[in-house]
């Protein structure tokens, strides 16, 4: 089944779905950064323990996961119908709905909506999709300054850095590094600022307070959008979300098509799955839900921008479409042995970790993110913690196959892996050839004399050991052992 062929993907040159270098190259550099590895190990260990504790409190966690999976499956199965229903409900409550085929179109819509207000500044709630489409850069090009207000996003923005985690974008930085950024970038900051998290949070509060109170335009993403009622839901912790969603005159919410849920009752499931999976809390401090415009309360202009940007291409892939169920909790990042060691930047996309390795290549087309499906050991820990039971390992394997198929279809010369596989196929097909190859492998034993592993094979086999160790071949093959023990077959 190849219906995904021809479905438009996220366009290049805009947004943050593609890295500037392949994963293995970026990962090698990240692995050499011992400070980064220490920061990540500490943070992911902490969050894993918190999540495990609050998940264990619920006796019906597996039933909730199954319900979450069922609700998302139903939503995707009738996505057109639910989006139209959502649109109707939002319009009925005084909101305006816009549709964007891709990042460029979404950015244009938002920029022109902001310009129409006359404001040159916006306050933003942390949002993955606006990062995906490169909204801040597009607004800057239109002469509009976007202030990130989530503490971690603020740290990243002030540090001229990139987010490295879905939930905690500054997870790669420790308190001392954050203090340095604040001292350098915040004009009025107290020079005696300490690196205590509470002191740093207070500095962010003071820095953003006047911006919130005078903001005229707010921009948010959406965690859930309820088709049945037209309700949009934003889950957060700091209150910066409430500030952006409540105080401005105009609110612009940008959401990926896949955020829609069929019914109000679905919140009973997702308001349990998301907080426990993401921050490891029974409930996050603040959740805002609103439907269109409420006279006398909050923004009196509300715009909802529905963004495709490659999502329909993912929807067309029978195996891959389940990644659209993702609720961006980031539990899979925190348990991933690869993510824990290389961090988020190595993935080159705003969506790092296991979910990023299956989402980014589908949004851009596999050929534009060909190394990400291989950025995994297929250990399956991500599948076990996923609150909506996305089978990430199966999608990884599927995307590897798509990568190979698409490379072949594009008539590229066969790669070294294809040549090696052809050779292996010929060797294994003949009894004599296979036995000879096994004997030959023993010649490699001296390469691993010291540690019992071979870290570097000679060319052309060096490509295999660039990212892996090879076990030393045994002194004796099984066939030889059998012959020694039982004599020659009669």
């Amino acid at each position, binding site marked *: 089944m190849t219906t995904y062929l021809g479905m438009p993907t996220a366009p290049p040159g805009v947004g943050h779905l593609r890295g500037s270098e392949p994963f293995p190259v970026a990962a090698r550099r990240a692995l050499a950064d011992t400070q980064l590895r220490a920061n990540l190990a500490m943070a992911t260990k902490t969050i894993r323990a918190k999540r495990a504790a609050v998940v264990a409190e619920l006796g019906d966690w597996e039933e909730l996961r199954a319900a979450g999976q069922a609700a998302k499956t139903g939503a995707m199965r009738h996505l057109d119908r639910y989006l139209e229903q959502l649109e109707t409900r939002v319009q009925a409550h005084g909101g305006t709905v816009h*549709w964007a085929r891709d990042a460029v179109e979404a950015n244009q819509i938002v920029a022109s909506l902001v310009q129409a207000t006359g404001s040159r500044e916006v306050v933003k709630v942390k949002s993955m999709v606006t990062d995906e489409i490169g909204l801040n850069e597009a607004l800057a090009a239109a002469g509009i300054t976007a202030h990130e207000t989530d503490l971690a996003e603020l740290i990243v923005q002030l540090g001229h850095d990139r987010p490295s985690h879905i939930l905690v974008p500054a997870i790669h930085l420790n308190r001392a590094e954050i203090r340095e950024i604040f001292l350098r970038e915040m004009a009025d900051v107290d020079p005696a600022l300490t690196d205590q998290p509470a002191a740093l949070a*207070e500095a962010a509060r003071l820095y953003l307070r006047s911006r919130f109170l005078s903001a005229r335009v707010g921009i948010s993403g959406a965690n859930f959008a309820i088709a049945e009622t037209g309700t949009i839901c934003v889950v957060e912790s700091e209150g910066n979300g409430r500030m952006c969603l409540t105080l401005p005159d105009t609110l612009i919410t940008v959401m990926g098509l896949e955020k829609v849920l069929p019914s109000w009752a679905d919140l009973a499931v997702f308001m349990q799955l998301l907080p426990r999976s993401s921050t490891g809390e029974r409930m996050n401090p603040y959740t805002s839900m609103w439907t269109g415009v409420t006279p006398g309360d*909050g923004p009196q202009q509300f715009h909802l921008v529905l963004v495709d940007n490659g999502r329909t291409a993912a929807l067309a892939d029978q195996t891959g479409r389940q990644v659209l169920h993702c609720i961006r909790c980031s539990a899979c990042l925190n348990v991933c042995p690869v993510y824990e060691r290389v961090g988020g930047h190595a993935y080159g996309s705003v969506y790092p970790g296991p979910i990023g390795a299956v989402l980014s290549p589908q949004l851009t087309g596999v050929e534009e993110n060909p190394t990400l499906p291989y950025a995994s050991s297929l250990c399956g820990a991500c599948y076990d913690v996923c609150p909506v039971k996305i089978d990430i390992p199966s999608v990884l394997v599927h995307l590897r196959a798509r990568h190979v198929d698409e490379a072949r279809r594009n008539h590229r010369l066969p790669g070294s892996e294809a040549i090696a596989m052809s050779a292996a196929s010929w060797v294994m097909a003949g009894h004599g050839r296979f036995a000879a190859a096994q004997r030959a492998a023993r010649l490699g034993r001296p390469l691993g004399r010291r540690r019992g592993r071979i870290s570097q094979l000679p060319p052309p086999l060096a490509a295999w050991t660039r990212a892996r160790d090879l076990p030393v071949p045994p002194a004796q093959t099984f066939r030889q052992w059998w012959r020694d023990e039982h004599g020659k077959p009669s």
Partner: protein
Amino acid sequence: MSPREEVLARIRAALADGGEPARPASAGTGPAPDGPDAGNGTGFRTEGDREPGQLLDLLVERLTDYRALVRRTSPAELAATVNSALAERGARRMVVPPGLDPSVLPEGIEIVTDDGLSAPDLDAFDGVITGAAVAVAETGTIVLDGSPDQGRRAITLVPDYHLCIVRAAQVVEIVPEAVARLAAQADRPLTWISGPSATSDIELKRVEGVHGPRTLEVILVGP
């Protein structure tokens, strides 16, 4: 083709195979879909099972766990409890929503009823006093639905201290019960509050008090 029509056409083309088959309704271990919780085919809990007394104890424990201040009182003692909470806080000037029962408000401090105050005006108050719509014991959550005794969202956001009066009848045990109770108010602005504002963005250490009210105090009015 308009962007809207094109996106919808893409979705329909992508789903030309009929989409992912629906999940079996009996994926879980719970009752059949035509049982008491129809539509919940996987059998997650839709109702708690604690006694009313235990329920309030659990709410207090969970609110406290997330660093909210909690006082328990009776209907007869409510006004006195509000008074002592404000006195201990040292609050002198409070804002209230238009529908808050004036009999619970103490004498001797300035009470201003919100009539569309600006954000900078709200920033100058010592705090806000409101009622609540629903409270969830298991998660230590209070939900505001913009009713007259809770007011506009801005009044419970900008002041640094939120004193919230929750009545026993408003307390449910688990999240699905709260979602069911709020269904009729789904088109109103809802704010779910679990403790004071907090962040874990620096080394995943939880810090209470960022942009929202840095102190949340709950007065739980028992039967």
